[in-house]
């Protein structure tokens, strides 16, 4: 089944990305660049898992919005609180 | 009502300190800003409240059913899909009106806030007398500790009446809120954080500082004296002051310590205050 093949490819990609994250840390890039790359890779991995393993890409879009609203809520708290520090 | 009248007098500067002029980024103390703004809000709030509530009660009485002809052609029917009634325009107008009032008030309040947040004014010349006195206030269960620039600590705040006083407030244990109601001052005392407030002490005398955040069993009694001294007397006291050994939030012991420490002349000068 094509699905199994797709799932396997995604699995391999996830595996490689996880390794890459640790590798990036070892490469002594600038701190900010490293943070950007590492978090960026995490986001890509999360989207892959949510989109394919949790089937969000094929579910009604409204389900994705529910998830995103939870995410947005958490981000609002995190960023506004951290920004408020004097 | 009498409260309102009193506030009106105060607001429009009759016999009170002149009302602050807005829109000039000048520093202002909370005791200039708060009574002014509070009375404006109170007067407008009362007016709006009276108008809206009277209208509501009027409508309630005016359209009271006489119990006879309830059913009308356009009465809602059981099981109908909900719909709205008309009168959207009236709603929009009312909303706009209230929005204008609220936004105008809040914008005005915001400009005043800038004055308060700006800190004490930079005064040109004579820095020796006009430079603000900076005192650190540390809340600790259940007393207020004051740390002066010379490192001395005390449990009663003594300040001169001839220069601004800037307080940096923090806490050594739990969250407190430091407030001197007489000067409309209040700020949180937070562990590992500093907040600042400032004021211009004027009349000599003794006022009280309170805790405004529940901080434990002693919260209700967590007060401290704030003594506003004549400038010269303050300088004399400050030059000779030493640290209080222990927290003495208790008024009487503090008075005794004060009396013993002070030279006779100064004591006479300030006796009325204590």
């Amino acid at each position, binding site marked *: 089944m094509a699905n199994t093949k797709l799932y396997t490819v995604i*699995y391999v990609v996830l595996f490689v990305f996880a390794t890459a994250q640790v590798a990036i840390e070892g490469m002594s890039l600038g701190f900010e660049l490293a943070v950007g790359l590492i978090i960026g890779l995490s986001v890509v991995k999360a989207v892959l898992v949510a989109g394919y393993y949790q089937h969000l890409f094929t579910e009604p879009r409204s389900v994705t919005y529910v998830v995103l609203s939870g995410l947005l809520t958490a981000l609002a708290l995190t960023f506004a609180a951290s920004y408020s520090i004097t | 009502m009498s409260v309102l009248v009193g506030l009106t007098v105060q607001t429009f500067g009759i016999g009170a300190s002149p009302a602050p002029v807005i829109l000039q980024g000048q520093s202002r103390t909370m005791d200039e800003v708060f009574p002014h703004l509070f009375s404006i809000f109170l007067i407008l709030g009362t007016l709006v409240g009276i108008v809206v509530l009277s209208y509501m009660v009027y409508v309630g009485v005016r*359209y009271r059913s006489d119990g006879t002809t309830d059913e009308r052609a356009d009465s809602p029917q059981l099981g109908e899909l909900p719909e709205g009634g008309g009168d959207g325009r009236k709603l929009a107008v009312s909303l706009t009106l209230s929005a204008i009032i609220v936004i105008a008030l809040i914008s005005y309040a915001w400009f005043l806030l800038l004055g308060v947040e700006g800190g004490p004014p930079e005064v040109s010349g004579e820095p020796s007398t006009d430079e603000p006195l900076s005192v650190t206030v540390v809340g600790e269960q259940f007393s207020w500790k004051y740390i002066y620039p010379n490192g001395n600590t005390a449990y009663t705040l003594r300040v001169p009446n001839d220069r601004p006083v800037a307080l940096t407030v923090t806490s050594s244990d739990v969250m407190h809120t430091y407030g001197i109601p007489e000067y409309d001052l209040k700020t949180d005392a937070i562990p590992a954080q500093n907040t600042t407030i400032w004021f211009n002490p004027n009349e000599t005398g003794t006022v009280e500082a309170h805790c405004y955040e529940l901080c434990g069993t002693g919260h209700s009694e967590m007060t401290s004296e704030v003594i506003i001294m004549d400038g010269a007397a303050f300088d004399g006291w400050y030059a000779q002051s030493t640290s209080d050994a222990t927290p003495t939030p208790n008024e009487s012991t503090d008075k005794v310590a004060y009396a013993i420490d002070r030279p006779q002349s100064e004591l006479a000068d300030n006796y009325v205050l204590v």
Partner: protein
Amino acid sequence: MSDDRSTDETAVQPDGGHASQPLAEPTSKQSALRRFFTRDDLPPYGALRRWLLTTNHKDVGVLYVITALLFLVFGGVLALLMRVELLTPVGDFLSADGYNQTVSTHGLIMVFWFLSPFAFGFANYIVPLQIGAKDLAFPRLNALSYWLYLFSGILIGLSFFQGGSFSGGWTMYAPLSVPNYMPQIGSTTTILALTLFVISVTVSSVNFLTTMHRMRAPGLTLRRMPLFTWSILLTVWMMLFAFAALLAALLILSSDRILGTTYFTAEGTPGSLLWTHLFWFFGHPEVYIVFFPALGAMAEMFQTFTGRRLVGRKWFIVSMLLVALQSFLVWMHHMFLTSINLQIKTLFMITTIGISLPFDLMVFSLIYTMVKGRLRFTTPFLFAFGSLFVFIIGGITGVFLGAVVLDYQLRGTYWVVAHFHYVMVSGVMALVGALYYWYPKLTGRMFNRRLGKLSFWLFFAGFNLLYFPMFIAWETPRRVFDYPAELTGFHQLATVGGFLLGFAFLLVIWNCYRSLWDGEPVSSNPWAHATTAEWAIPSPPPLENYPGMPSYESGSLDFLDRDSVTTDGGTVTKPTPSGHDGHDSHASPWPLGISIGSFVLFLGLSGVATGGIYVPLTIIGGGLLAVTLLGFGMESFSVTEPAVAERWPFAGIENGKLGVWIFLASDIVLFGAFVGSYAFLRAGYGWQAWEIVPHNPIPGLINTYILLTSSFCVVLALVAAQKGRRWGVVAGLTTTLLLGIAFLINKGIEWVELFHHNVWLSTDVQASTFFLTTGLHGLHVVLGLVIVLYMIPRALNGAYLDDERPVEYFGLYWHFVDIVWLFLFPLFYIL
């Protein structure tokens, strides 16, 4: 039998004695215990067993209302204790600590255990009726919510007997709330009780959201929902996210108290501010969570008793929607006096004012609805009218607090106390109106009208006498018993008002109680001009609510014959899963059992650090919880989804899956708040100065590999289930189990290694955040493994071959746990 049954019950007279059909009672040969748990049919109302086992939304609603009223009495007595203390300006009645406990528990009880549950009693009862559903989507979970609520309340009551209850105010500011300053076990119990309550709320939120989005009668689009239902829908959405943030705060606080982490006390980090952020991020939406149901009920009563449709109904709904969204962006207005910066203060001042304007619109809308109406000042309408009246005062005085400069001085004083009581108790007034409004529907009898009106006037007078003097005496600092002597008179007036208000409440309760017997029987629609569906069916309604399938497709409510439903393109058609018109279950012993287990477990946890009796309690509670959860899982409990319904915007997925997703959304907020706490503390500490706890990232990386692989296995198990390969399913799940265990072992080794290097949970804030956040994740892994362990034997029996949905739902959860790790790994191991 469902059809026969409902027609039977429809015929039951609304005689107040309730439907007491001769139901198939178990034979006397069965043991008493067995008989108790037998639940083939719902026992009659008169039997205690019915109330312990019922999962029916109407029964649960009634239970909520009654329990909430009991907590009202509890919280009210605490309030009166305070008012007696405040008769004099010095402390002479309660001890200082006693006063603090009274203040704190009064707030907690009223906000959490009275107000919301009272409203949700009506929501339980009325919302399914208004949308045309037979019950909630997950009836057993609904019963579970109720029992968790009740037992969490019992737990907070017990806290008084454990060396004193919580004494840090309902806002629970840290670090006063940590054991250094508040060592009593009872304070831990209070926090755990609240945690249990939050779990109840979360379960409830998932349930209501699924129900309201997917089980509306055909033709009842979201826009057409009655206003009470609208208010509940928005309330529940807010609850889902806001309570998740509170849960994070409570878990962290519990950990600081029980495990010794140092989130709120560590040197060099703004721990105290962290609490205020977490708490108020929940706390402000909570204001609307508490008030919205009251607003919705007010709108219903205004329409019914003015005989007019709500003016600007659409804008009323838009206003509520705006408020619900924006409620998450105003929390820092509770923190104007803290060290937050000026830009943030300005921003939050603007959002705060922004959120007040929709309320203006709603108030005007209610007022204009009365114009040209035929107002019938019945008891419910008096309460609704009075509620709007005092709400306007509460609203105006709230604008004062939105102006930052005024807030500077008003904060921490009785101005705030008076303001929020004017708002909150205005909500209570509306809900008491709602109690009178729906009382005939709930009981089939009318309350005593004269007593009702008397109770209103006493209520209204008591209310204003209690709270208005507080505005005048606003200079009194909050939560003190020692206030300026010149304000004594005002406080004495308030005390008199407090007793009057308390008496009015008792009168309301008495009236409702007596009228169960004395009230005159009522028809299905005792209030003329009520339009919503609950008034179209008998009072009280039969077990399955409707004589047929309710539908609005013709433009107004019809009851169609269930068997001959035809649909047009607008709605989704699905045959009922079992092929016949389902026999729905209405009773289960497990919700009660799970709640008792949780109760014992939490009671044990409260003192587990001190040893003694608490250790066996923890173990017994844990065991009981495990057994009852297993019982819950194994029970066959049938619920049919309506064949045809309005399901926007979730038409494409079934109830169960939507429920899982909604739960996961709240779990995102929970983890988000943990990660947010970490980011906040780290930002306050200095991002780069912060040292990562693990010595090297390799164990973390290995665990990443393990979790990714396990996710892949779950996916394969699902594919196998879809293809009907039993051994594929078993293999996939078993591998997942083994990998999960490997993950935990690897983590265990890592932790032991850290402990060996003397890095403990309490070492420093870096270690605290590391252990607690990854520990919460580990707990999610453990929970997942428990589910897998339950599924494997069933898979062996071929359970998931016909219906692979459980595997899919488990996968959703497991992948989520995986995704969380994808972020925890870089945050705690690399950066």
